[in-house]
């Protein structure tokens, strides 16, 4: 945390110049153009925004985008928390193996991983064949929200595990020993001591996964169907198929504003949890 609070020497600012230049060129400038066009095309005014909020399907997809992002984040937390905990208490060899299990899929392109999920999830895919062989009924996975959620969870999992692991590694496990000596049942001491101290990691990972989920494109496109379209797909349709840069831009701006809204809501919680665990070192 000292990195955040420590005062940077003046020279350090110079070192950030290349990054700032690149960001201006490839982020700020195009984004400015998009915002501009959302208000200016095809005629100047708020027409694109009025259209967005008056078209029910847009609102449905926006709500669905947030719903899917929420479930993906929730699944990531549930899967990543025990995994990161195992990483933080494992011996050096097991830890390396666990880290590799996170990183190797991460190095494989998201497209490839999503296509692998297509093979697993499709109606005659691996999962359904196993279910049939075990005497269960077929489950529709591909082109459903469930399928999209499963695929996105797997693709985004590293973004949850890594921040969690970083925080958990810094938690002194001897605190749990102290809690036991003071009369706390091991389960209780976990919820009273360990969980609160690990919350900054949960928030950091959850924010990352949630925001990445909101703008996810490839995975929902390949695993989803018409009933699980996310906003990014609609934007792509507007811009590339219908060549309506104004409407596409407006949708992008709405998504961005909504994202900021979520961050603003999460902000106070995150600050609090950082303060809480600030002295853990």
């Amino acid at each position: 945390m000292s990195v955040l609070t420590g005062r940077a020497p003046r020279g350090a600012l110079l070192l950030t110049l290349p990054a700032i230049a690149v960001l201006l060129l490839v982020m700020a400038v195009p984004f400015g153009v998009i915002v501009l066009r959302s208000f200016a095309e095809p005629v100047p005014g708020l027409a694109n925004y009025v259209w967005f909020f008056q078209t029910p399907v847009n609102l449905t997809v926006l709500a669905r985008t947030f719903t899917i992002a929420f479930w993906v984040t929730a699944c990531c937390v549930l899967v990543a928390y025990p995994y990161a905990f195992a990483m933080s208490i494992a011996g050096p060899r097991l830890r390396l193996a666990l880290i590799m299990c996170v990183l190797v899929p991460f190095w494989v392109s998201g497209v490839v991983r999503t296509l692998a999920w297509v093979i697993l999830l499709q109606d005659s895919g691996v999962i359904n064949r196993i279910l049939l062989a075990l005497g269960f009924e077929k489950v529709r996975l591909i082109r459903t929200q469930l399928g999209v959620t499963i695929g996105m969870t797997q693709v985004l999992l590293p973004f949850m595990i890594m921040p969690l692991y970083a925080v958990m590694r810094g938690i002194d496990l001897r605190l749990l020993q102290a809690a036991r000596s003071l009369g706390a049942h091991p389960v209780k001491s976990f919820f009273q001591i360990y969980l609160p101290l690990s919350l900054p990691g949960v928030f950091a990972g959850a924010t990352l996964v949630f925001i990445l989920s909101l703008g996810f494109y490839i995975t929902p496109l390949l695993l989803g169907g018409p009933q699980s379209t996310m906003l990014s797909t609609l934007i792509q349709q507007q811009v590339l198929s219908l060549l309506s840069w104004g409407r596409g831009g407006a949708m992008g701006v709405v998504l961005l504003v909504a994202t900021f809204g979520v961050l603003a809501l999460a902000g106070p919680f995150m600050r609090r949890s950082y303060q809480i665990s600030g002295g853990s070192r």
Partner: protein
Amino acid sequence: MNAASNEATCKGAAIDIDGISKFYGGFTALENVSLRVEPGEFMSFLGPSGSGKTTTLNLIAGFTDLSGGDIRLDARSIGHVPAHKRNIGVVFQHYALFPHMSVAQNVAYPLKQRRVGKAERARAVEEALRKVQLDSFAHRYPSELSGGQQQRVALARAMVFGPSLLLMDEPLGALDKKLREVLQLEIKRIHRELGSTFVYVTHDQEEALVLSDRIAVFNRGRIEQVGTGQTLYTAPQTLFVGQFIGESSVLRGPHRSAGGETMLTVAGTALTAPGAANGEGAQVILLRPEAVMVQAPGTGPQEGRCNILSGVVREMLYLGSAMKYEVTLADGSHVTARTPTQGAPFALGATVELAWRPQESVLLADDGSTAGH
């Protein structure tokens, strides 16, 4: 000698450690250790790192499982009671305060686990913090406190629920010398006020001497000797104990026992020590620096019988009230002597006579221990 006798209202627990062992795979951390700690006693576990003292403490606290033997608290076996049900206060070297809780919340934690009511809890927390003189820090967070203050909070937290036994694992190990001495006095005062039994783990023999009613000296997973600081200093039963407690010189040589005395030949000189040889093996004489007089060669015995050795002054230190000499003997071994400062000191390189009364020689079996803690 122990504290049990000096207080009628004593609420400390008696600990009976009964032949306990702890093995980690093939490694023996503790082998067949037995010990009784009296109610209200201040007992220190003293020994070098890896000697088994912390292992014993962890077994009493319930942090690790016994490999063998049993531990009883007031005649009740706790060997298989989980740590959170033992009702034993523990103070750790690393403080182990909960960083996300204020000082008051930390101290209230054990009371909350015991479902103590809110008003009673607040009162007990305040009293415990007053005992460690931190009542004005209740709303601070651990990260805002110094190491010494954090350890006081940990002490308050460990005693607030009125445990009959308090375990301390090198609680002052992370603090500087000045602060250590202040807190030693405070721990002693709190021990008197509480009347609980204290078990204190340390590798610092001075700290053990200052604090304890009795000291158990650990070495290689066993207890070498249990006794008051004075007993351990004046009548060590093993060379290890003799060397671990206080300063000492060790003289080695062939020996011959006769008539309740043993003669040890060191650098060609026969030295007398009281008592028969301990066992079959080699014997040593252990000497405390203040027992040895330094005198000019040829002075001879001053009164009664004396052991006399001659040597060369290798090192001299002025300590204010005393002079400390390092004297090298003809066979290359060293003797440390501390004498009151009087007259002109002997110069470096001077040949001197070392003289001491035979009964000051402690005759011990040579267990191969070497000085240096």
